[in-house]
């Protein structure tokens, strides 16, 4: 069987896969990282979004073998070792940006990419358009948009994070 070597959340692994194994299957079934979800068969919902070499991509629409040598970050790789949440996770919690939570890992991964690619500031309109690849059937998006707007100044060092509870 073919092998793929990649670094996931800082840890390098070499895994045996089939040609048809998707990156999301590698993450969930071979590496046990079930935070990355699968919500559709049509590449539309974004529940599976992870970062590959710094860019947000749909892990259900990439072969595991295409990730050879890649740096992959999943939702499990965001919090610090002591459990301190990433500012985006913290703002999702603070602004109640989730209900069932199914879309949340993908939303958070897309949102971080969105904030990182807007270093000069981000408007509500840009946030809403930037989430086109992520569907949420619960929240109605308003609180997700608020959480992302609140995470922007923290991620760009313009505001200190809220004190941990």
């Amino acid at each position, binding site marked *: 069987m073919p092998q793929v070597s990649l670094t996931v959340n800082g840890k390098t692994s070499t895994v045996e896969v089939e*040609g048809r194994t998707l990156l999301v299957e590698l993450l969930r079934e071979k590496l046990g990282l079930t935070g990355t979800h699968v919500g559709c068969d049509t590449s539309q919902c974004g529940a599976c979004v992870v970062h590959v070499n710094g860019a947000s991509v749909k892990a259900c629409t990439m072969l595991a073998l295409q990730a050879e040598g890649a740096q992959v970050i999943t939702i499990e790789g965001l919090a610090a070792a002591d459990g301190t949440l990433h500012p985006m996770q913290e703002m999702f919690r603070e602004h109640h940006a989730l209900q069932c939570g199914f879309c949340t890992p993908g939303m958070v991964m897309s949102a971080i990419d969105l904030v990182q690619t807007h270093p000069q500031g981000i408007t509500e309109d840009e946030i809403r358009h930037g989430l086109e690849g992520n569907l949420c059937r619960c929240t109605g998006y308003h609180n997700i948009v608020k959480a992302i707007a609140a995470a922007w100044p923290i991620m760009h060092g313009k505001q200190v994070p809220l004190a941990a509870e």
Partner: protein
Amino acid sequence: MYDFAYQKPSNVADAVKALGADPEAKALAGGQTFIPVLKQRLNKPTVIVDLSKLGLTGITVTATAVTIGGMTTHWDVAHSEAARKAIPGLVDLAGQIGDNQVRHRGTIGGSLANNDPSACYTSAVLALGATIKTDRRSIPADEFFAGMFTTVLEQGELITAVEFPIPEKSHYMKFRNPASRYAMVGVYVAKGPKGVRVAVTGAGQGGVFRHAAMEAALSANWSPDAVANIKTPPDDLNSDIHGSAEYRAHLIGVMAKRAVAAAG
């Protein structure tokens, strides 16, 4: 998904050879169309040839043309300042394809080879009179598309680059399907070295097409009013759950008018 063998050659000649050796071998670019197709078991390739290591990425801008490597992502086109200065309409179009995640992986070569009747790039290629460069020849836009999901590409022929002549002005206006993000109707208008050309995507039963009546009207008078009253017959247009042929015919007029207004 059926299983297949996977290869990642490091030059175009080897990729062409691998694809030519087996009629069931298929090229893989960004996978944003092909992987969903594989998941639905609509295709059963024996070998998948990944094009990502062939060195086909990059954008070159000269005084007269913008050339985009076949494996260049929609994201990279949408964020190219040099391309934006030369053909802003084309760069805006790339930024409207799908969503950020699709744009990070999807490529111009994959989009054109696939010739989805609702794809965006097809309209720019046709309206700007681009040339499709492959591993073996150069194909003018007017000869490239051969009906929906069909092109004149031979088995194993690879798009290596697309050359767009720089127009005087051009713009793409898209009415997107809110769920899929594809074009319900998209109209690309251009005035340039190849004359005035109008291409319509999302609507035609045979895929992207040029709109002769609008081209004539805009050649005589480049203004939104010139196209405002041109009716498009619905006979050869698509009807589906998203909209009837009559609805699409109407949208063509509205999108064309807005595209000319935005082109200036």
